């Protein structure tokens, strides 16, 4: 959730005043109880692994951190199954949980080489480390997601993306990769070599093997001008298509129960750097939570209070100039759960309006803004952006709050508008559903059977959707 520091600072103090004067700070700041945690170890003494938001966990009997490709290949061949690789643990779907072997690629990290536009990195490299490493060579990834903790391998595996009408998801910039397979081999894959595996492996949920190294197309490292401003949600909806067409990166957050939207643009500039400063989005989220706690019983009062508190932020856009890797991706200190679907671009805004209206009518407990982004198409077999441009809609809930409602209230809207779920984010789709959404689904299943006939890489969730 990266929105605006000025917006947060100005409105946060106002929220404290309202909270103290109305029903008391304690009432305003009341918290949902901490969700129950699983035991730290199981009966056999295996230490728990749990995802970032806390809703997925398992007790792997073996943990491995290979330092070479050969070690990785050997693990795939001999370690206890299921063998699952974890990056930053930011997936909300049960992609990682395993009772077998949990593999970290943290020791297979770093920039390997930069040759012209092509950069090669180990798959365990975190995005937050890849940015400065590339910048040191005068290069940059064209686009980034809004969290920088993911490993590049994990980000590819789930089709992680940023925003920009002419910018594909991360896997769209991959030109070659090396894949360790369960027979202990390393396959070199590109459009020219093992092309089918290349097109399947770019988005493959760790089910074909382990990507150890990726080669990416990069761009010159340039400064971007970041602008963040609030305006009415209606105005944003009416101008969104134009903004996607005219800005390098454009996204917006519909702020439910306020009638407002936070708009964010990034455009290339030669202006001198004006750094963004410390992250303060958490304060903005705290304000929205306080408004929920105080006025959740009345949408009218909640909206009126929000408009008063956010008036100064509406009049004062936040601006910054810096290298793209410093602005596009950030830390996310507040944990949440998330559902995100990628819709045909033409359906995105109508669907978003419906989602916001429905949440405001049925779920006053929601306070996180709802994110809308645009992604250019690519041709990976399981890419949600395969076949045409997609518009994403992402609904978040605080990690302590109920998220199950999203399956009943939000998912049906996004599916009705033709959405494909983000592979790492909450959804309840089955293999049959995916078969109807992806033209190359059966080709992918056949290739998976060929590369991993024993299903050593499949946990229960993957066996379910692949019909194994």
């Amino acid at each position, binding site marked *: 959730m990266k929105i605006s520091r000025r917006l947060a600072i100005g409105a946060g*103090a*106002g929220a*404290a*005043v309202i909270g*103290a004067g109305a029903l008391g700070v304690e009432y305003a700041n009341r918290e949902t109880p*901490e969700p129950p*945690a*699983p*035991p*730290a*170890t199981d009966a056999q003494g295996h*230490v*728990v*692994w*749990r*995802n*970032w*938001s*806390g809703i997925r*966990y398992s007790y792997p009997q073996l*943990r491995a*951190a290979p330092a070479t490709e050969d070690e990785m290949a050997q693990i795939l061949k001999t370690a206890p199954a299921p063998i699952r690789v*974890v990056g*930053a*643990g*930011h997936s909300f779907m049960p992609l990682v949980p395993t009772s077998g072997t*949990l*593999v*970290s690629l*943290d*020791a297979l990290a770093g920039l390997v080489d930069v040759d012209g536009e092509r950069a090669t990195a180990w798959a365990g490299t*975190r995005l*937050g480390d890849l940015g400065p490493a590339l910048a040191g060579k005068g290069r940059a990834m064209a686009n980034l997601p809004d969290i920088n*903790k993911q490993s590049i391998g994990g980000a590819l595996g789930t089709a992680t993306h940023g925003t920009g009408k002419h910018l594909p998801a991360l896997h769209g910039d991959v030109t070659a990769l090396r894949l360790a397979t369960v027979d202990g081999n390393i396959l070199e894959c590109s459009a020219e070599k093992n092309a089918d595996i290349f097109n399947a492996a770019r988005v493959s949920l760790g089910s074909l093997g382990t990507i150890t190294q990726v080669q990416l197309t990069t761009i010159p490292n340039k400064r971007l001008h970041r602008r963040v401003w609030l305006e009415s949600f209606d105005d944003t909806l009416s101008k969104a298509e134009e903004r996607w067409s005219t800005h390098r990166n454009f996204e917006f957050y519909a702020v439910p129960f306020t009638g407002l939207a936070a708009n964010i643009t990034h455009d290339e500039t030669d202006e001198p750097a004006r750094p963004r400063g*410390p*992250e*303060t989005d*958490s304060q903005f989220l705290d304000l929205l939570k306080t408004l929920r706690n105080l006025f959740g019983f009345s949408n009218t009062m909640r909206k009126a209070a929000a408009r*008063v508190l956010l*008036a100064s932020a509406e009049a004062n856009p936040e601006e910054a100039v810096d290298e793209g890797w410093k602005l596009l991706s950030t*830390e996310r*200190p*507040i*944990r949440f759960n998330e559902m995100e679907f990628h819709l045909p671009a033409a359906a995105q805004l109508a669907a978003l309006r419906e989602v916001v209206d429905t949440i405001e009518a049925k779920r006053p407990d929601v306070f996180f803004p709802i994110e809308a982004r645009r992604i250019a198409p690519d041709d990976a077999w399981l890419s949600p952006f395969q076949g045409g441009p997609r518009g994403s809609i992402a609904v978040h809930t605080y990690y302590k709050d109920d998220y199950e409602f999203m399956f009943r209230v939000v998912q049906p809207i996004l599916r009705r508008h033709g959405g494909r779920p983000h592979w790492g984010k909450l959804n309840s789709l089955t293999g049959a559903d995916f078969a109807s959404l992806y033209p190359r689904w059966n080709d992918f299943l056949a290739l998976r059977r060929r590369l991993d006939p024993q299903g050593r890489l499949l946990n229960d969730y993957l066996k379910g959707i692949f019909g194994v």
Partner: protein
Amino acid sequence: MHDRGGAGRVVVMKRTILSVALLLVLAGCNQPSRPSDEQLASFKPADARLAALYVQSCKACHANANSGAPLVHDPAAWEARWAKGLPMLVDHAIVGFQAMPAGGQCAACTAKDYEGLIRFMADHEGTP
């Protein structure tokens, strides 16, 4: 009339906010000092394995004064936590607690690593 009333409300709200801000600043005067941002950025465990794990999985939050996490080598942040006992701190680190994601999302860390990392961050490396 509406404009004047709105302006009046804005002035009152601004004054109230300034008063609250002043109180917060004054309250902040009594807080024990924490390490400077430069110190936060430079702290690192002496042990090479722990240092690598710290940089990979802990530093982003525990050396960031805006993250809300207890800061490395900040006595005010760690005193009450340390009093709860190392086993409870290790348990919280492994399963996650409040803003802390489980294990700091360090898939390679062992229970012994967490113990060493907590001792380092709390500045109790030599304490039994």
